């Protein structure tokens, strides 16, 4: 199949039941393109022809005929697909400045949440998506040459306790199966909302850069930060700042000049939603 995922067309070759089921559910709103048509990214997931086919079966990930990563347990084919696709995008899509960030939109204006350890980015992103924000991406801030952000909505991976947090916060959220004992613990994915996928051809203007930090039971505090601080954190957080060289420097500079920038600490999702709602009002 060739799946339209944001600005990319992804050819997926796989005969793995767990993955087929995951794709048909998590990507059911996404457009399918002619199977013999152009594809930006070509991946194949397959079971190796070895004794591993039968004993503790495994799955491998290939891009353009070349195997990427060590094999995963067969039951982890869906998270392998998601992480593999992230890798394919991060190593190729250099027409963009690619921020490692969640991006959401309201009223045509984009909120950028750069990812840092302990930020709770994905949980926050899933929560905001279910409170009136359109998901552009959980993982990639795709900054174009004209500084607008292109959408790349994908299933949002939640880890461990966050799975239960989002189930409680947004009972309407559609979660996929849980995958225990992955390299990141137990992982489950939140399906992007139909509205997020339907509008994935609509770019957004970046307006806010907010560096989130989750701290259990902490009061929600939104604090402006200097432009230089925002610049350096964005630059070193981006997947391809160094690859882009001078152009990367210029794009980050324009982004910082265009946006308001904050640190944000929070301990409760409802407080976070309230803060971002008032930011957007």
């Amino acid at each position, binding site marked *: 199949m060739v799946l339209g995922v944001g600005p990319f067309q992804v050819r997926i070759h796989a005969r793995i039941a767990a993955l087929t089921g995951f794709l048909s559910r998590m990507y059911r709103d996404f457009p399918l393109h002619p199977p013999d048509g152009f594809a930006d990214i070509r991946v194949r997931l397959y079971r190796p022809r070895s004794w591993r086919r039968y004993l503790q079966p495994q799955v491998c990930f290939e891009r353009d005929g070349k195997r990427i990563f060590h094999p995963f347990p067969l039951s982890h084919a869906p998270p392998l697909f998601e992480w593999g696709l992230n890798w394919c995008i991060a190593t190729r899509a250099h027409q963009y400045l690619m921020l490692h960030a969640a991006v959401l939109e309201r009223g045509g204006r984009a909120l950028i949440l750069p990812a840092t350890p302990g930020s709770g980015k994905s949980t926050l992103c899933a929560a905001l998506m279910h409170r009136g924000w359109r998901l552009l991406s959980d993982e990639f801030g795709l900054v174009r040459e004209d500084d607008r952000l292109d959408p790349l909505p994908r299933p949002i991976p939640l880890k461990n306790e966050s799975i239960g947090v989002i189930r409680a916060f947004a009972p309407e959220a559609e979660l996929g199966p849980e995958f225990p004992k992955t390299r990141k613990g137990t992982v489950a994915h939140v399906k992007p909302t139909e509205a997020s996928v339907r509008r994935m051809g609509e770019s957004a203007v970046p307006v806010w850069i907010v560096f989130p930090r989750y701290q259990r039971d902490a009061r929600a505090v939104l604090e402006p930060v200097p432009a*230089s601080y925002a*610049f*350096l954190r964005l*630059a070193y957080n981006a997947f391809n700042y*160094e690859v882009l060289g001078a152009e990367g*420097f210029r794009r980050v500079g324009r982004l910082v000049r265009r946006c308001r920038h904050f640190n944000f600490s929070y301990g409760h999702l409802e407080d976070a939603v309230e803060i971002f709602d008032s930011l957007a009002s």
Partner: protein
Amino acid sequence: MPRSARWRLIDRDRILWERWPGECIIYNDLSGQTHLLNLSAAAALELLGAEPESAETLAEKLKVERAEIERLLQEFDQLGLIEPDE
């Protein structure tokens, strides 16, 4: 460092600047490195981009201690931003 040694930017056209009140960030296209500069360092680098300067003349123009300028020039040299003007 010899007293009269003069320094210059290696290539002024390969330094990109982002300036804000109180600080700036530069990108050196020759090294691919990004640097955060305080006001004194930024002013010194701008002067070196206009014409070669010695530690003595920089200290005089910027009204800072010569020792501080010499440390700064050493750091700029190590970062590949400047070279001796020979």
